[in-house]
């Protein structure tokens, strides 16, 4: 399996960074909305405030981070570079951000015109992104790094699942917006989005990134080879069974059970790898991975509760645990690796060593901070604790516990503010570093004229 990344293929910092900056912003919006909506936010999954919150999370927080990270990882881990990447990323980011805000507003105010408008923004955003990435995967299929298959198989599955999720979402939004009865495809929309797009992408990233950044052993080969094939197969089987009439419900539940089992297996293996990693002290990112995988294991009993219990709240709790607990934890934790790493890398790229002189390189090394200093360990651990409190509180709120409903919004604001502060601190240090480098006597003026966030990287 591939265990090396080629950072020479890193896209410019302006490609992924705006997507990552969306995460704390939308997290803050979700906190404000949950505070404002109060009990309405957790009354039912069909409530307007709950739907708005759900899409702030899935599109604004998770979608932004995952779309940005995928552009990065395809280039450095697979040698798949998306053409016109700045244009694709810029347009996708703008349309996604505006479309998500409009969709959330549409749910809050129950405005049909906003749903149509959101579909008109989000449809092109995802179509452009998917077309550009699919074309890049096809165009560079012969240059893909040997050993990158373990990443590309789940990535292709995740992208196909994203296409299904978006298509269903567009049909639902346009049906609602244009006043016709929407088809009963909502469970499919949720399943393809969370278990397909979200789950498969996380799985693919874990195969590559945990051994490199968490110093774990490699995933067992059968897990890395077969789970990314099994999960899309189960999603297809579930969809066929859901669409067909006359077949017993038990068959669809069996497909769901196998899907739950497949993800529980991945979570169990991941926890074991993290537990036996070569570094005994967990870093903040390790703690987020623990939170994500424990949440994933918790989805199994919650699924049983939802399927065989009578409470309509079970589905709401399961949704909260999957979105905030599983996907939210891993995305938040990965930001603490990927953002400092990108800033460290681009600061390295901004070095200009005259005449290949090591003495000059030494001068630079004195002003270049280490990656670990971009985001401090303690503030990141503190934000992790706030995030775990959010998972627990939101789950209890979804289960109907009134005190948790009151605390859910403020806690989310605290967690989002912590994340924003930590990322902001990293960006401030990066700017200071570039300024310090620009002040060095041998730093060429051309390198410092394109703004404080200028850095190397390729188109």
């Amino acid at each position, binding site marked *: 399996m591939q265990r090396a990344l080629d*950072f020479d293929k890193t896209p410019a910092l302006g490609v992924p960074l705006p997507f990552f900056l969306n995460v704390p912003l939308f997290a803050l919006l979700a906190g404000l909305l949950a505070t404002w909506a109060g009990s309405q936010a957790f009354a039912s999954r069909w409530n307007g405030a709950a739907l708005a919150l759900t899409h702030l999370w899935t599109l604004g927080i998770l979608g932004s981070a995952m779309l940005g990270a995928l552009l990065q990882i395809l280039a450095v881990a697979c040698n798949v570079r998306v053409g016109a990447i700045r244009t694709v990323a810029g347009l996708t980011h703008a349309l996604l951000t505006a479309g998500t805000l409009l969709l959330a507003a549409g749910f809050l105010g129950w405005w049909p015109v906003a749903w149509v408008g959101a579909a008109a923004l989000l449809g092109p955003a995802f179509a452009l992104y998917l077309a550009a990435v699919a074309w890049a995967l096809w165009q560079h299929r012969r240059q893909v790094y040997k050993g990158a298959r373990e990443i590309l198989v789940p990535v292709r599955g995740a992208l196909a699942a994203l296409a299904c999720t978006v298509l269903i979402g567009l049909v639902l939004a346009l049906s609602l917006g244009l006043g016709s009865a929407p088809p009963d495809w909502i469970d499919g929309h949720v399943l393809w989005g969370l278990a397909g797009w979200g789950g498969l992408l996380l799985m693919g990233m874990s195969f590559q990134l945990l051994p490199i950044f968490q*110093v774990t052993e490699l995933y067992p080969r059968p897990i890395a080879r077969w789970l990314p094939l099994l999960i899309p197969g189960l999603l297809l089987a579930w969809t066929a069974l859901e669409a067909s009439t006359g077949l017993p419900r038990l068959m669809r539940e069996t497909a769901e059970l196998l899907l739950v089992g497949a993800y529980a297996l991945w979570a169990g293996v991941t926890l074991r790898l993290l537990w036996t990693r070569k570094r005994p002290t967990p870093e903040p990112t390790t703690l987020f991975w623990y939170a994500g995988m424990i949440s994933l294991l918790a989805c199994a009993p919650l699924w049983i509760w939802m399927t065989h219990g009578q409470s309509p709240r079970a589905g709401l709790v399961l949704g909260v645990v999957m979105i905030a607990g599983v996907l939210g934890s891993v995305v938040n934790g990965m930001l603490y690796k990927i953002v400092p790493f990108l800033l460290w890398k681009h600061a390295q790229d901004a070095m200009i060593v005259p005449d*290949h002189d*090591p003495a000059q390189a030494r001068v630079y090394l004195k002003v270049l901070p280490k*990656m670990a200093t971009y985001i401090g360990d303690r503030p990141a651990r503190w934000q992790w604790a706030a995030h775990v409190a959010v998972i627990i509180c939101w789950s209890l709120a979804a289960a109907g516990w009134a005190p948790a409903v009151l605390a859910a919004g403020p806690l989310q604001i605290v967690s989002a503010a912590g994340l924003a502060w930590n990322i902001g601190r990293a960006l401030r240090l990066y700017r200071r570093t570039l300024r310090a480098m620009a002040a060095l006597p041998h730093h060429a003026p051309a390198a410092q004229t394109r703004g404080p966030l200028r850095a190397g990287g390729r188109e």
Partner: protein
Amino acid sequence: MAPPPDLTLDVRSLPAPEPLEHCLEALADLAPGQRLRMLIDREPYPLYTILDRDGFQHCCTLEDTHFLVTIWYDAK
């Protein structure tokens, strides 16, 4: 005069990019004629670009369980 003895740097079991950071620190203190021998779990492709930029030569060999990267400064 005999060149100074090789420096050995063992960065196995360190997460990215700590091996690179340790290597760059060690290179900053490398004496003329001295070589750095780095033991690492995976081939450090990103390091090669930095070495080229800073005027260092390198060679990499696969040992039993790790890679051995030898780095020296070739002042021409």
